[in-house]
């Protein structure tokens, strides 16, 4: 199936140069395939730890609050449907990506106590414009992974907006002295992949800035929306 996809004629933005299809040489074709392969490798994959822990929480919820447990199953199935069926699309409507983040955040809410200060602001005027699926997922995931503590007060502050055909993500979280070394290590890989993926998808047209201070960690991401979707 992968092979079939990669032999398709190049389309849309992931092609390496702005040339038209007629101008495609063998070398460009090979370069395109190489990038597609790299992208497939770098595609966001759902974190099994997230999945198993969420199932474990739902498992507990069934006994104490069956209605909330049912809601959580619906939330999780929508999240999985998006990752499994749309995760390999080149572009999805921005609203789909935002819905996914909503499912993710609500499922994380079940897992953590109320004393984590969680904000999710969306101000989007072009919800149908295209973005690569799951392009924001890694940043949100990392914010939860490193932003939550029970010893100190902690926060995760996410805001998404659009302006002049561009998408803006701002994601900030509290940083904690006694970080969990295991999760920091795996978070590093996720961030590196996300960065590489952005470099391949939007080589010159995105901006990713990471602001790290002693007690906060912030990601600013800007990328162009695909308005032809």
């Amino acid at each position, binding site marked *: 199936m992968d092979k079939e996809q990669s032999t398709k004629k190049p389309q849309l933005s992931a092609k390496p140069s702005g040339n038209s299809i007629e101008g495609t040489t063998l070398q460009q074709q090979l370069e395109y395939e190489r990038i597609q392969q790299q992208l497939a490798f770098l595609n966001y994959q759902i974190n*099994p730890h997230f999945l198993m822990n969420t199932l474990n*929480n739902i498992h507990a919820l069934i006994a104490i609050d069956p209605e909330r447990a049912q809601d959580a199953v619906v939330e999780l199935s929508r999240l999985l449907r998006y990752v499994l069926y749309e995760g390999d699309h080149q572009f999805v409507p921005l609203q789909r990506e935002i819905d996914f983040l909503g499912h993710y955040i609500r499922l994380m809410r079940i897992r953590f106590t109320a004393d984590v200060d969680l904000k999710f602001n969306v101000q989007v005027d072009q919800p149908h414009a295209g973005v690569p699926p799951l392009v924001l997922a890694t940043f949100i995931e990392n914010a939860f992974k490193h932003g939550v503590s029970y010893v100190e007060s902690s926060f995760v502050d996410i805001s998404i907006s659009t302006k002049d055909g561009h998408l803006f993500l701002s994601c900030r979280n509290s940083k904690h002295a006694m970080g*969990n070394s295991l999760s920091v290590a795996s978070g590093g890989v996720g961030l590196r992949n996300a960065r590489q993926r952005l470099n391949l998808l939007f080589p010159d047209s995105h901006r990713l800035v990471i602001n790290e201070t002693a007690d906060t960690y912030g990601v600013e991401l800007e990328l162009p929306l695909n308005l032809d979707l």
Partner: protein
Amino acid sequence: MLRVIAIDDEPLALLQLATYIQRVPELTLVARCQSAVEAAGVLAREQVDAIFCDINMPDLSGLDFVRALGREDAEAPLVVFTTAYSQYALEGFKVAAVDFLLKPYTMDEFRRASGRLIERHQQQEALRESQSAQQAEEPESDEVLYLRADHRTQAIPFREIKYVQAMGEYLRVFTDSRARPLMALLPLKRIEGMLPADRFMRVHRSHIINLNRIAHFSKGRVTMNDGACLPIGDSYRAAFEQWLARRRA
């Protein structure tokens, strides 16, 4: 009955764990903790036989926490790890976990892990008991003097012997456990060979003393700590004083 604590940063996961613990009659839930830091506080206050511990927690991971408990210590609580990540299993067993529960887990799996925990706890208890029993027990056979006295062969642990006194063809063995000395038909020279030379010494033609029982020594006499005052023979004085010189401050 095992006293256990449950540790998990996620409230629902902790609730689930606590519910399962309460369903196993052999387990008593002492505390539920939302972090390893909290659990350390409980361990300092309470007697805890075993912990059920999540691995991936913010602030301090379960693995690091259990490592810090010191697995060498025989008194350290037994550990069952719970985690959503199977790749931690290997590392978990490296820190000597009794078992490993992969989230989400069923009551059956939890019962099985508890069974292993209870079994391991019983082994530990049995080992501890046999160790302390061994300490309280009669000493090993190489620590005992077998002496024919009062028409039977008596076993007398060396450490119970205070001193031995020759009386003609007989000798009297003064011990802790008997009010009267044991009388045996045996030359002093024979019994001297049967007692360990590093703990007993001939100090007189008719006396062998337990060197650990000396209260004080002066002017050719040694006083035992039961009050008995024994002379030191001229031909034994040099050897005794040499022994004393090695020990005197």
